[in-house]
């Protein structure tokens, strides 16, 4: 090798050339396999470009489900789920009611009350008569939609109704529902409008 350095530049020096050998097939297959595995990894771990999703959470749904909710927020969240399953069909998910079907809950004087005993009687016993809601008469019959709900669920629904769409009434606890249920007895009859009017809040 040192001879090369002693003599300086060689008189002719060919530039390198390349053979025409092709890419071996196995490396292309390997690349495709890795691409596939990588795509699977990306699907599981990237959150699909969501800017709020950080590892180790693997999807936005997972992050959402693990969010710790404070006490009130948890009750509201649960109540919303129950309301939309049982009550929203007639009263509307937005609480404005449906003419000919159910009166509005938003801004209703029956909901925005100090106490909640009278309000709890409605889903627990049902109504069979005419009541006035926000100036209008409603003569629908309501079945005891809440009779089959657990204490916790009914309490959550009532808390949700009393805290949504502008309503600002207090929450209802599962114990309270328990007490009211006990008071009403096994198969309470639906109340009439007059009975409702006379009942204390």
């Amino acid at each position: 090798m040192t001879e090369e350095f002693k003599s300086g530049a060689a008189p002719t020096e060919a530039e390198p050339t390349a053979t025409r050998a092709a890419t071996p097939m196995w490396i292309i297959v390997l690349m495709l396999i890795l691409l596939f595995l990588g795509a699977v990894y990306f699907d599981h771990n990237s959150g699909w470009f969501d800017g709020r999703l950080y590892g180790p959470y693997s999807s936005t749904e997972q992050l959402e489900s693990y969010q710790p909710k404070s006490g009130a927020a948890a009750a509201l969240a649960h109540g919303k789920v129950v309301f939309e399953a049982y009550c929203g069909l007639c009263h509307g998910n937005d609480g404005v009611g449906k003419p000919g079907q159910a009166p509005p809950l938003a801004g209703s004087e029956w909901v925005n009350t100090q106490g909640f005993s009278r309000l709890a009687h409605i889903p627990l016993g049902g109504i069979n008569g005419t009541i006035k809601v926000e100036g209008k008469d409603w003569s629908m019959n309501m079945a005891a939609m809440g009779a089959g709900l657990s204490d916790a669920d009914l309490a959550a629904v009532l808390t949700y109704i009393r805290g949504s769409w502008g309503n600002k009434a207090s929450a209802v606890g599962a114990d309270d529902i328990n007490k009211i249920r006990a008071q009403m007895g096994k198969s309470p009859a639906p109340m009439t409008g007059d009975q409702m009017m006379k009942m204390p809040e």
Partner: protein
Amino acid sequence: MKNGALVFLAALIALGGSWVGFVLAPTLQLGGEKQTVVLNGTDVYPIQRTGDATVGLQVYRANGCANCHTEQVRQDGFACEVTLTAAGKNPTVVSNLIASLKLDGLTHEQAEALSDKITAAGGKSETRLVATGGDIDRGWGIRQSVAADYLYDYPVQLGILRAGPDLANIGFRHPDMKWQLQHLYAPKSVSAHSSMPPFRYLFEVRKVADSGPSADALDLPKEFAPAEGSEVVPTEAARQLAAYLLSLRANVPLYEAPFTPVTTAKP
């Protein structure tokens, strides 16, 4: 090569792809971020640094602190844990129930099911979300660092080496200005095995004035103290750097990095 133009075009696309993906997209996604709100709260986060702490970041940058310290906490996992808050009417039933079950390291569904069981037995429980990971076990943070933590930093000093501990929450671990200054002047005086160089050029050793030692003077143990009649006083740069270090706190829960804050004494 006849299709040299094609090679050139393919190369441009391959090169440009990463520019789009790792420069343009993050600038659009993260570059326009604004303050966010603490999880389940109303406080905004992060709060912009003021005064000495702002300049302190530039002192940190100028002295290359990021070459030995990181400012990012990483998280390996997350788990729910259930704790009993009230025994209820049947304390023995509830305690028997709990004794046989695992209360931590749970998934979200497992925690909910356990919580329902406890409620059914008459007790009350609380479910907490906990972040887990090596950095968290070392006490360097309660949750991982996210982009929101660096919103107002320029330049962001994430750090490249952990020759020393992570500093993301140093403001919580050592909230005392005097400690920070003493550590900068003589790291071995507060941390026996430290390999951090003493930053003596950030301090001034001067004769004690006739009126007595100044309020700023550091309280050093004998081996590190200057000669008799001298005192060590921090320069402005040292104070700014210490103020910056004290401002490094990132222990609030966020939507991106949630956890249930503990309201009892443990930090």
